[in-house]
């Protein structure tokens, strides 16, 4: 459950899967080349570090309470990312696929709603602005 300035090692995330897990659901958030019709070349992610860490842990704990068979891991990147780089990874593993899918979906939705992380989008002309999801 953490925040990292280094590239996310997706393969390493799958190492924690238990032998009882028959379904592993992996969600990756990736920097896209446009937003609302404007081209994007990079995104700067800024976090309230310690609170982002504790909120991600809280989200994982809460999801594991609601889907007791699932185990959830969340990693979020901070710093400047280019198009195509992974910004967030959520792994949910469970004995069966249904819980894995549901826990994964719930975890990423809650991460986006509560974890104190912000992004500034950079455009090809050098302009940039903070993304406000409440205005889109």
């Amino acid at each position, binding site marked *: 459950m953490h925040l990292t300035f280094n590239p996310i090692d997706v393969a390493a995330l799958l190492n924690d899967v238990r032998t009882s897990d028959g379904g592993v659901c992996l969600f990756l958030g990736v920097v896209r080349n446009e937003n609302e019709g404007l081209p994007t070349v990079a995104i700067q992610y*800024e*976090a*309230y570090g310690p*609170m982002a860490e504790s909120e991600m842990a809280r989200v994982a704990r809460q999801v594991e309470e609601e889907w007791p068979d699932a185990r959830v891991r969340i990693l979020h990147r901070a710093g400047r990312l280019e198009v195509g780089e992974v910004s967030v990874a959520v792994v949910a593993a469970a004995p069966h696929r249904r819980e894995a899918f549901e826990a994964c979906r719930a975890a990423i939705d809650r991460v*986006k709603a509560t974890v*104190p*992380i912000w992004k500034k989008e950079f455009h090809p002309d050098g302009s940039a602005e*903070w993304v*406000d*999801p409440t205005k889109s």
Partner: protein
Amino acid sequence: MRVNLLYFASFRDAAGLSEQVRELPEGTRVSQLWEAVAREIPRLASFPTMPPAAVNREYVEADRTLCDGDEVASLPPVAGG
């Protein structure tokens, strides 16, 4: 009493600083601190309602009473993922 107020992202840009120690009367609530800050920083006053706030790295209600030494943050709309 004193609290440490943190600014992030668009709020940091608007305030021109990332943190600030503020002297407050005992019993000040989070909402009162926000009102004081919004009076000083006109770009924040344009925010329609008080943004979510955190005290000591946890979300709190607007009527939460602050204590000496608290770390307080008003959080712009989060946009992780």
